Structure formats: C-alpha cells, structure tokens
C-alpha cells in the first residue's frame, strides 16, 4: 500500500498532467468532494469570515462577498469533481469582468483563492487526522487539483485585466490623432499633448492615410496644444511634411510655439519646405486660398451664396 502511494508520488512529479486527469476517477477524490458538499455551509462561512478578516475585497459589501464566495465554492468543488476547468475559467473571466471596474486588485483575487485552498485543506486535516497515511493520499489527490484551480483563476483574472488595458490603449491611440475633413480636399489634424516618437509615427501614418482616403490636397496640422517637442519628433514632423508632398498634398503647420520654433531652427530645418502660419484660423484661410475657395458673408454677397 505504502509503496503504491510512493510510486504515485513519483509519477506525480514526472507526469503531473496525466496523473491529475487520472485522479478524477479516484474514489478518494469522490469521497473528498462528498465531504466538501456536506460541510458546504460551514466551510463557506468560515471562508467568508477569513476573507473579511484578511481585509481582502474591501471594495465589496459583506453580502456580496458571501454570494460570490458561494458561487466560487460551488465551482471549486465542481472542478475537483469533474477535473474540467473550462466552466471555472468562464466563471473566473465573468467574475473578473464584474470586479475589475470596482478596483479589486490581483493580490486580493489570488489571496481569496489561496484562503479557500487553506480552509479546505484544514478541514481535510481535521477529518483525517487519525490516519496519517490516508491523509497523505487525500492530499495527493487534492493538492494538484487545488493548485490548478488557483492557477486558472489567477490567470483568468490577469488575462481579463490585460484585455481591458489593451482595449483602453487602443481607445487612447485612436482618440489621440483625429483627422478631420473641414472642406472638400481640406483636412485638419489638431494635435494636443506631448508627442513621443511612437505617437509621431502613428500621426504620420494617420495623416498619410487620411490624405489618400479623403483625397486631400491641403492638410492643416495644428500644434497649438503641443507644449514642446524634441529634435527627433521635430525631424519626424519635417519628414511628414515631405512625405505628404510626395502624395500630392501640401501641409500647413499652425500654432508653432516659440519653443518649438526654436527647436526647428536649431536643427536647421529647410524653411522653404515648411509652410507655417500663426494660428489655426490663419492656417485654414491659407488652405482655402490654396484650394481657391473664397468665403463671402451673405450680407456682402448681396444674395449670392457663401462659399466658392
């Protein structure tokens, strides 16, 4: 008997996954699940109490903790029974979706799962304390499954979190460089906030694509909202202007601050290539001139329509 258990342990080390799946037919595990089902109420309460004690999940109320604890507990026992973590994975993802916006941290989620593991292990110790050999074998069955559950929940939580972060990054990226058409063939590109090399690259890409998609001839890039730029970005800006010309569009830069103007002069930009106008209004007027638009107010035009 003892040798068999040792053999199992060795196998456990060498081929953990195979053993884990084989374990679910283990009568011991079934006994264990039955024990956990029987003591559901008491163990669940014990767990919820320990969570509150450890001051985890402070963002949630006591009732919420208890109801989440109940579903996690049931899921936990189910995984122990069936060995399939898929349902738990889905549940963990769903739970993460609900609790991440409420500011629950990774350590709290990992913490509560480890607490449950601890609570259950203690109850097993208590039940099997008389027979050390049996306890050993019960733990052999319990530990790998419990580890796998803790792993699954933590990974699901982190994955969900990363997904949220990725989505937000994407949103910021899209928001940061709008390309707006104000007239036929005239685009404006208002830039607000600091430009780092990565954003500069993305800006260029958006601008060049915007030129192609909107068939623009003139683009007004307004950098009033940019406090300062470094030399790399300044160079990048100049290159963007040149690349736009290659695509048949001219770029007007407006709202250059004194600092940025100084940077541009320091790096020795060829000013014949840069069409700079003081402010956005002036830039749009210059663009309209280039596109042969003429804006006439209706009172001046004596009944003729405004526009070109």
């Amino acid at each position, binding site marked *: 008997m003892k040798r068999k258990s040792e053999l199992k342990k060795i196998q456990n080390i060498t081929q953990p996954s195979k053993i884990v799946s084989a374990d679910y037919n283990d009568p011991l595990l079934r006994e264990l699940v039955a024990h956990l089902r029987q003591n559901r109420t008491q163990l669940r309460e014990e767990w919820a109490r320990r969570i509150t004690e450890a001051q985890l999940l402070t963002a949630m109320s006591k009732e919420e903790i208890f109801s989440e604890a109940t579903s996690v507990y049931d899921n936990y026992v189910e995984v122990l029974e069936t060995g399939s973590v898929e349902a738990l994975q889905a549940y963990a993802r769903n739970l993460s979706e609900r609790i991440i916006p409420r500011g629950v941290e990774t350590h709290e989620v990992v913490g509560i799962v480890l607490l449950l593991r601890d609570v259950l292990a203690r109850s097993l110790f208590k039940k099997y304390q008389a027979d050390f050999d049996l306890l050993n074998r019960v733990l052999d069955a319990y530990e790998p499954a419990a580890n796998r559950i803790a792993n699954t929940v933590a990974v699901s939580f982190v994955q969900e979190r990363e997904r949220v972060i990725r989505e937000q990054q994407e949103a910021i990226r899209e928001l940061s460089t709008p390309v707006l058409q104000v007239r036929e063939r005239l685009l404006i590109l208002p830039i607000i906030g600091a430009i780092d090399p990565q954003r500069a690259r993305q800006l260029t*890409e958006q601008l060049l694509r915007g030129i192609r998609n909107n068939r623009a001839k003139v683009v007004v890039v307004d950098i009033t909202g940019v406090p300062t730029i470094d030399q790399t970005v300044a160079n990048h800006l100049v290159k963007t202007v040149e690349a736009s010309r*290659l695509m*048949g569009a001219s770029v007007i830069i407006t709202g250059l601050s004194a600092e940025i103007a100084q940077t541009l002069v320091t790096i020795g930009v060829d000013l014949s290539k840069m069409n700079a106008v003081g402010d956005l209004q002036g830039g749009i007027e210059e663009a309209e001139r280039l596109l042969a638009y003429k804006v006439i107010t209706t009172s001046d035009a004596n009944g003729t329509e405004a526009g070109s």
Partner: protein
Amino acid sequence: MQVPILKQGDYLIASIQSVLSDADLLQLRDNLGERVGKFRSKGVIIDVTVLDVIDSFATRMLRTIAHMLKLRGAETVIVGIQPDVAFAMVQLGLTLEGVGTALDLEEGLIYLNSLLTKRISHHGP
C-alpha cells in the same frame, strides 16, 4: 517588364504595372524621351501606384526623367505614391525635389492642366 506608355491628347501616361528592374527604368527614360519628341507632348504622368518600394536608383531615375523631359518641353508629374512608400522615401532622404507629385492619375491630370494653362496665360496678352 516594359512600361506601357499611353498617349492621351497632349499628355503621355506611363503606367507602371509591376516591380521594375534598373534596366526597365533606363528603358522607360529612353522611351519617354523619344515619345515626347515624337508626339510633341506637353505633359507626362508616371503612375507608380503599384510600387511597394521606391529605392534610391528609382528616385534618381524619376528625377532625371522629370528634368530631362522639362528640357524637352514637357512637364512631369509622379502620381500614386503610397503612404508607406512616401514615408520610407523621406526616411532615406529621397524627396524628389523639383518634381511634381499628385495623389492619383486624376489629380495628376488636373495638376498638368493647371500648370499648362498658367504657362499659356503667361505667354498670352
């Protein structure tokens, strides 16, 4: 692969169909030089829409063609440079100075038309 050159009124249109070797570019230069004289063309459009890469030799050759044709009495405009290509060219310092560029064939025609009417009105009264 040779570049087909189409005649359209006063203009010639060289529409590049595939990646060009250096020899093809030289051939294009020679053909355009000859046709401009033969048809007495006023403008030439070179369409590079299909090119994913325009290297230094191609850039130099396009510039040479433009300057050469100018001396033969025709304006040249390069059309259809793709966004990525445009930026890559600028990164490499290949900016086609002194050569007209336009978004696509249609824009190229408009560009040449406006350039030539200006020239005519200069000579006019």
